């Protein structure tokens, strides 16, 4: 008997990927792109809001009514001496005019406009509640003062921040669930398309985990590839945003300050891994459920 000199290496038991899997790869990549971008945006917004609130905490504004420049100077000196105050600064009229420029224009304020006298107060870190001390000290000295410790503003920001975080989390969860559902659907379709192969393997004595592993490996790689493409695209989009916002910083100061740090890169790194695991688990569950219908 003649013997062939060369024998081909073992081909995969599942055929190479077909058009359906290319389409699925695109869908997984798109979903991962959206999920990563939402996660990055959520983190960025959260970071910016946290920065705003931490900056506003420890800052107070004292508004004095019916005082001239001399009395304002006295009030500033009095505030500086109160325990827990790190710094007090009388805001000059020119600076107040700058703050009001969006409403009154850059030609200065009308002469008769009663601009309140404002003193910016910074608290010593960990000094605790200062508003009451300021109110009583200024009141005792005969000043008609209003203290704004920005608590309401900080509370609003924190509330908005919590809602934004919840919305982002829900969006990411929804995208992940959608990806898993799409993959499960695709695995089911792939299984139906390859029922002949599954059937032959099954009747050849292949245990269910053996058959499931074939699909698991295939979809694990598909998830990793799709997730990587999505993560790289999200990185590109985020970098573009960082660049775009950075180059127009003077006009976009109210928007969250974007940057890419360790945690952002961790999100991008985890995206393909999560996609891979989600694909793998979806494929395994689908295959085992299908096989359970057979004897």
């Amino acid at each position, binding site marked *: *008997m*003649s*013997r*062939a000199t060369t*024998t*081909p*290496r*073992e*081909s995969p*038991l599942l*055929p*190479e990927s077909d058009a359906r899997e290319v389409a699925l790869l695109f869908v997984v990549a798109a979903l991962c792109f959206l999920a990563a971008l939402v996660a990055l945006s959520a983190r960025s917004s959260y970071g910016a809001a946290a920065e705003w609130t931490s900056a506003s905490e420890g800052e107070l504004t004292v508004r004095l009514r019916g005082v001239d420049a001399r009395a304002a100077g006295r009030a500033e000196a009095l505030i500086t001496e109160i325990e827990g105050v790190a710094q007090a600064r009388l805001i000059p009229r020119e600076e107040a005019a700058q703050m009001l420029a969006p409403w009154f224009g850059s030609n200065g304020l009308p002469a008769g406009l009663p601009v309140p006298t404002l003193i910016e107060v910074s608290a010593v870190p960990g000094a605790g509640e200062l508003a009451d001390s300021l109110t009583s000290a200024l009141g005792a000295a005969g000043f008609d003062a209003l203290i704004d410790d920005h608590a309401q503003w900080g509370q609003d920001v924190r509330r908005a921040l919590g809602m934004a975080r919840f919305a982002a989390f829900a969006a990411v969860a929804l995208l992940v669930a959608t990806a898993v559902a799409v993959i499960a659907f695709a695995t089911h379709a792939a299984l139906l398309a390859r029922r*002949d*192969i599954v*059937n*032959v*393997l*099954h*009747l*050849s*004595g*292949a*245990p*269910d985990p*053996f058959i499931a592993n074939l699909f698991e490996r295939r979809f694990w790689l598909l998830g990793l590839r799709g997730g990587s493409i999505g993560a790289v695209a999200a990185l590109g989009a985020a970098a573009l945003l960082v660049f775009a916002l950075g180059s127009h910083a003077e006009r976009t100061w109210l928007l969250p300050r974007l940057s890419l740090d360790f945690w952002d890169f961790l999100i991008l790194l985890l995206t393909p891994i999560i996609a891979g695991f989600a694909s793998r688990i979806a494929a395994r569950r689908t295959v085992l459920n299908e096989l359970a219908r*057979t*004897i």
Partner: protein
Amino acid sequence: MIVTMTRHSPDRIDAPSVRFDRVGLRYDSSEDVLSDLTFELEQGAFAFLTGASGAGKTSLLRLIYLALRPTHGEVYLFGQRVSQLRRAQLSALRRRVGIVFQDFRLLEHLSAYENVALPLRVQGQKEPNYRADVEDLLNWVGLGERLHARPETLSGGEQQRVAIARALVSKPDLLIADEPTGNVDPNMAERLMRLFAELNSRLGASVLVATHDHGLIARHNAPVLRLQNGLLVRDGQERAG
């Protein structure tokens, strides 16, 4: 009705390879495809299964190679009651059965060589360990020069020979062949039957061949299970007993 098949290899006296105990089969809400079948195929037996088209031959074979559960009754394979086995145990049993499907069921993306090697890969064997066996078997069925050929490039007869080689490669304890000579010339049909007989006599494997070919049955001295409208009928051909 009880049809007990006669053993050709008297060296093994274990439980029958196949035992049907009042087995019936019905697909969905249709009429019974198989009714009240009771028979044994003893270890080392060689038997034919025959009957007109639609008599239930393929359904009976599917029950034996564990592709179906009976609607009622019990199927025993190698002494094990199939209905009581877990899935992993069923897989292990299937590895002891070689099947030649009527429609071959070759995997289109695999070469002839890889199709034949499939049951060995499923068993976890490594390619260098089985290469010689697979090549020898393909040489034996006359396809030594077509190891790399994909099924779509093979003729019907060649595909059938690949399917037969795949069923034999793991040296099964039970070989089920559904019309194995339907697409091969008489010469190859005789060679295949000799191979089945050799598997039966040398290795003690039980062989059940479903066929329409009365000439083939007549040329081989083996008991016959005859199906008629889903029932087993005594053929009177228990000539090897």
